């Protein structure tokens, strides 16, 4: 809720963002954002992602892909990760990846779930056979250069890495 969100770590050593200076090295800042387990938070998350993505000089196309995949991953967490009702927090961290793309990690304290191991729906041959579900996982795996999962200290840590 608080304005500490999205303040880049190490901001004091960092020059102001320069989206129009491709000759400068990529900003090294990492941006953090906390949202509650409420689907109504997704728009606020997307706005944060777009704003910080621009500051990190991530290309609009990669920001769009990351926005889509973050929507899918966080929707799954909010919809399926929690056994009991109640307020929970999901923490996102965005930074430039070494590959020159971007890396977004999503951390939650819900039940263990590895999106990289979940089965993908079989593509139906006909509309009548189309199974509705599992498309989010498919989109993330196909659109990202890498998806990594770790279970650490009772938390899920899912990391999406875009193409360069």
């Amino acid at each position, binding site marked *: 809720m608080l304005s500490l969100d999205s303040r880049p770590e190490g901001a004091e050593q960092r020059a102001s963002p320069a989206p129009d200076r491709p000759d400068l090295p990529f900003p090294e800042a990492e941006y953090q954002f906390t949202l509650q387990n409420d689907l109504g938070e*997704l728009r606020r998350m*997307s706005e944060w992602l777009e704003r910080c993505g621009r500051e990190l000089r991530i290309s609009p196309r990669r920001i*769009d892909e990351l926005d889509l995949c973050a929507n899918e991953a966080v929707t799954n967490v909010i919809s399926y990760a929690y056994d009991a009702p109640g307020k929970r927090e999901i923490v996102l961290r965005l930074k430039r990846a070494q590959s020159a793309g971007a890396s977004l990690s999503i951390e939650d304290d819900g039940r263990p779930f590895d999106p990289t191991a979940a089965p993908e729906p079989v593509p139906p041959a006909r509309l009548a056979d189309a199974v509705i579900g599992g*498309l989010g996982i498919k989109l993330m795996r196909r659109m990202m250069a890498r998806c990594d999962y770790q279970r650490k200290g009772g938390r899920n840590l899912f990391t999406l890495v875009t193409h360069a």
Partner: protein
Amino acid sequence: MHIDAEAIEEGVWKIKLSGRMDVQGSQEIDVKFAGLTAGERNAIVVDLSGVNFLASIGIRTLLLNGKAVSQRGGKMVLLNPDATVTKALETAGIDTLLPIFTDLEAARHAVARQ
């Protein structure tokens, strides 16, 4: 999101969607969209040119409506998605089930009764 429908010829409907088709956007149009693809409307062109974001929940909405039309022997196609939306449709493998057109006349022809 916004949703509007107009008859572009006898028995052929164009449904225009605009806005962000994420969880919130899809919920905003779900009921009206289902109403517009129900009943006797069997030839439907869904104009996606005004949609700037499509998540799997929106793809689900498109599939459910396409399925309802097809189960009555009708046809639903998609018109003019932007590059980002096209990529989501193709990555999900949906473009084979709900064909994408970039030309209204070709889309109209594809859904009209022969």
